Structure formats: C-alpha cells, structure tokens
C-alpha cells in the first residue's frame, strides 16, 4: 500500500475515505427507507406504528441518557402528557385538525419538561434519577385523580380525524406514512443535534462535566435544553401514539413505562443513533411474542432478566456490540 507522502496526499486520502463512507451510509439509509416504505404491505400497519412511536420515544430518551449522560427515570410523564393532551383536545374540539392536536400535545410535554428540567438539574447523578422518578409519580397522581383522563379506564375513542384537513387518517396506510414521516423528521433532527456544536458540548458534559465547566460552558443551560428537547420529542411520541391507538391510558404515565424506555435504549445501544430504534423494535416484538404464547404472564420477569443480562454482559447494546465487532474485524 502506498503511504501518502505529503499533507496534500493525506488530505486527499481522508476526503476519499470520507466520501466512500458517506456513499455506504447513503446506500444503507436508502435500503432502510425502502424497507420502511414497503413494510405496511407485509406487516400489520398498527403494529409497525406502535414500533415507530416507541422508537421515537426511545430516540428522545437517548438524547438525554445516551448523549448527555443524564438518566431520567420519569420520561413516562412526557409520553402520557402528550397523549392525554392530544386525546383530550381531539375528543372535545371536533373542529381541530389532527396535526394541531399533536402539536398542542407536544407543547404541553415541552412545558412540563421545562419544569422537570429546572428542578432536577439541581441534583446530580443518582439523585437526578430519583428526582425525575418522584416528579413523574406526582404527574401520575395528577392523571389518576383528574376526571378528563378517565382515571383507571383511560381515554377511549380519540378520533384520528384528518391531516391538514384532507388526508383521512382513519385509513391505516395514510396514518402509517404520516407516523413514518414524523419519525424520520425527528430522527434526522436528533442526528443533526448530536452532530452540531451543541451536541458536542452535550457529549463533553457526559464524559467529564467539571472539564466542560472549566472550558467555560454554562453546563446547566445545555442540560436544561437537552432535557426540554428530549421531553418535547417524548411528548410527540405520546401524542402520535394516542392518535394511532385512539387511546390514552394510565399505563403510559406509570413508572413502568419509564423503565421500559430505559430498557429499549440500553438493549439497542445507548449513545448510538440507531440503537434506540433497534431496541424499541426488539422490546415491542418480545412483548408481543410473549403475550401470544404460554409465557404471557411472565413478561415482567423476562424483561427484568433482559435488563440484568444486558447490564452484565452487553452494556453497549445490540448496535454498540455490532459497531465494536465491525471495528475490530473489518475496520
């Protein structure tokens, strides 16, 4: 192999390498997109939409956990707030178009997320997890006692309505492509955020917070902003979910849901872009398969077992382990 001898050659080699990688990435993404576009003709669209909603939820969570290093144990609160707000508005104001309902749900989660963020960043590390868990429990109590949520019964029959006033979302295919479009937009947004200078600061905070402080960054502001974006996207996931299933229930607000999104992110690979998507697909599928078979009562212990196993043996998650493998053997 020719060794590049001067800086111009080195530069050229790097550019070529980069271009080859970009091409590979483009092809991979193109194939993924084609699969996603064709999927509803092979698999039940509602199931796919469930995966996409949870994938968005996990992507949102991962922005905070995987890239900023903050473990929130209260993300269920945003999912539920988005879902209940959108559900309430669409059920009670028939003139409202679906996208306005979803935007309103996302905004509600954003406002709540700002409150959570300002309180919880006052504590660090393990305390942060406990504070977010406790705040989410407060939100849970609120939803249990409020009349508009339907309490234990949940909120049923949320109308899907029409998108922009002319696309009928009662049709599962239309609904699917809408959810897919929102998901891809959010995924690209998170990719952009992670790659931006802002995202670099978040990673710096994760790796070594005191150093980020000493470099002159106002760490708290970055953390709050990351938290708010994460909460907003989680709320959006909840809003979409309530429209897809025409249902918003207390399940979404329960601490169990906060644990589930952690599991999705961890299993898929925290701190990778694709990880949460893979993890959400994995967990939703496992839950579905288990619920169909003889092990239907054992979902919780099995999820717990996966938790323990992942932490003990596959801390990088599915995507992280594959990346490691590729780097070691093919890089």
């Amino acid at each position, binding site marked *: 192999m020719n060794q590049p001898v001067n800086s111009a050659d080195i530069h050229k080699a790097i550019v070529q390498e980069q271009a080859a990688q970009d091409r590979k990435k483009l092809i991979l993404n193109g194939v993924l997109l084609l699969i996603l576009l064709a999927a509803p003709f092979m698999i039940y669209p509602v199931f796919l939409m469930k995966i996409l909603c949870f994938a968005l939820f996990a992507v949102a969570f991962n922005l905070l956990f995987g890239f900023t290093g903050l473990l929130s144990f209260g993300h269920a609160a945003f999912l539920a707030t988005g879902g209940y707000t959108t559900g309430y508005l669409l059920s009670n104001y028939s003139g409202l178009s679906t996208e306005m309902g979803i935007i309103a749900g996302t905004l509600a989660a954003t406002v709540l997320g700002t409150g959570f963020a300002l309180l919880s960043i006052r504590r660090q590390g393990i305390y942060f997890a*406990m504070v977010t*868990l406790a705040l989410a429990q407060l939100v849970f109590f609120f939803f249990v006692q409020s009349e508009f949520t339907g309490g234990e019964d949940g909120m049923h029959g949320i109308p899907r309505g029409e998108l922009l006033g002319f696309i009928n979302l009662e049709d599962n295919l239309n609904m699917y492509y809408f959810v897919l479009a929102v998901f891809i937009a959010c995924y690209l947004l998170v990719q952009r955020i992670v790659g931006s200078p802002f995202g670099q600061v978040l990673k710096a905070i994760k790796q070594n917070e005191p150093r980020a402080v000493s470099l002159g960054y106002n760490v708290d502001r970055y953390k709050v902003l990351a938290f708010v974006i994460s909460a907003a996207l989680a709320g959006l996931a909840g809003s979409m979910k309530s429209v897809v299933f025409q249902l918003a229930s207390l399940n979404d607000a329960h601490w169990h849901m906060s644990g589930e999104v952690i599991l999705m992110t961890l299993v898929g690979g925290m701190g990778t872009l694709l990880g949460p998507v893979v993890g959400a697909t994995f967990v939703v599928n496992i839950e579905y398969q288990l619920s169909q078979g003889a092990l239907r009562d054992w*979902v919780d212990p099995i999820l*717990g077992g996966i938790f*323990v196993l992942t932490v003990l043996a596959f801390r990088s998650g599915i995507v992280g382990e594959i990346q490691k493998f590729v780097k070691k053997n093919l890089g």
Partner: protein
Amino acid sequence: MSMIFGVPLAVLSGQLLIGIINGAFYALLSLGLAVIFGLLKIINFAHGAMYMLGAMATVLMFDYLGVNYWAALLLAPLLVGAFGVAIEYFLLRRIAGQDHIYSLLLTFGVALIISGVLVNWFGVSGLRYTMPDVFKGGVNLGFMFMPYYRAWVIVAALVVCFATWFVIEKTKLGAYLRAGTEDSELMQGFGINVPLLISLTYGFGVALAAFAGVLAAPIYSVTPVMGSATLITVFAVVVIGGMGSIGGAIITGILMGVIEGLTKTFYPPASSAVIFLVMVLVLMFRPSGLFGKEA
C-alpha cells in the same frame, strides 16, 4: 369533644399516629438505602422488592411452616439479607468498576424479576396475616385510642434505627464502614476485607428493608406489588433529607410521615402527593436537601 382547627382531637391524633407509623417505615427504608449508598455508592432500586419479600416471607412462613411473628422478625431479615448478599456477590460485584448508573439499572432489573415472579405465584390481591394475640386490643390514652401493635411498630422501628445509627457512628465496625466510604482502596491496603464488608453492608441494608416488611405484614395489605409505590415515596424522602447522614434519614422519614398524616386530616386529596410537593419545594430552596452535604 375538643376540636383543633375544626377537626376533632381524636381524629387529628389518630391521623398523627398513622403518620408517625408511616414515617417509621419511611425512616427504616431510607436508612437502609443510605447505608447501602454509603459504601456501594448505588441506589438500590430493589429495596422496595426486599421490603415486600420481608412481608411476604412473614405471611408464607406462617401459613406453610407455622413460624410465628417473633421468629419471623428475626428469620425474614436474615433470609432476605442472605439473598441480598448473594445478589451483591453474583451480580453487583461483576460491574463494580463501571458507572454507578449500571448498578442502579441492575437492581431495577432484579426488582422487576422478583415482583414479577411473585405476582405470577400469588396474584396482586393481598394476602392475609393474622395479628399475634399479644397485640390485639389497645389502650385508651384519654384523647385517643392507641392499638398495641401500632405502639410496638413505632418502638421497634425507633430502636432498630437508633441501633443502626449507634453501630455506624460509634463502634469500630462503623468506623470501618465510614472509612470505606471515604477510600476503600486505602482500607484494603490496611488489611481490611473490603469486598466482604461490601457484601455484608448490602445484606444488612436489605435486611433493614425486610424488617420493615415484617412490621408491615399485620397492618398493611401484603401483595407482591406493595414495594414499588412505597419505594418511590421513599426516594422522595431521601431527596428531601439527603443521604449525607444516618440521623438525617431517620428524622426526615418520620417528619414526612407526620406531614402526610396531617395532610390526610386537613386536605385528603393531596395526601398522596404532599411528600412529592415538599420535595419540589426543597429542591427549589435548599437543593442539597435538609441534611445533605453535597449538591
């Protein structure tokens, strides 16, 4: 009947008593969390499950083996403590060098397994535990009726809390523990078996939770899911008090129980949320907690 703020004295003192008892449970549980946090630097998410195991063990040992209350008071914490030592030895130890977030997630997974398995075996409806005959009845204090068992719970919890405080703050073993929290490598260098100390500490911490479970068995509904909701409340208590001091954990626990009891008397709808609201206030005005040393 004398009235205080429009509430009969008997009702008020009755709620206060329930508050103090809940507070005693919060104190025992947050004390165990603080002990474990001190040496292992992790939050034990399986703590609620251990509390539940203590209560379940009490009921099941009585139903199947005829083990009475007093024996359970000793046996259940021992069994659960041994179980905790096994968890520390086989699971937590393997990820000791990793980020503490992982051990937190590991204990969360363990809690899911324990409660999930027990839900399958026993369902979510409560098991019944008959109170020992000694504790039946109560005494009239003039302004209120005091059931014997409730008095016993308060006394037992306070004695155990005080004993734990005494051991950790005043004895040689406690000095080892405190030194271990400062610098466990140096401790190891002095020839103290730190890994053993860590195992035993985790075992002791969860045994405290199991002890609370035994105390709870005759008065609370014993179900496989009784731990999780209690644990979240205890987390809020821990955030309020801070885990800097053992004494702080005890005082905050009882204080929060009393506040909860008072809220139940004067404004019942807020009673389940009040501790969390106090937590919000503390975070706003004293972020490091009432007794906390670090932010």
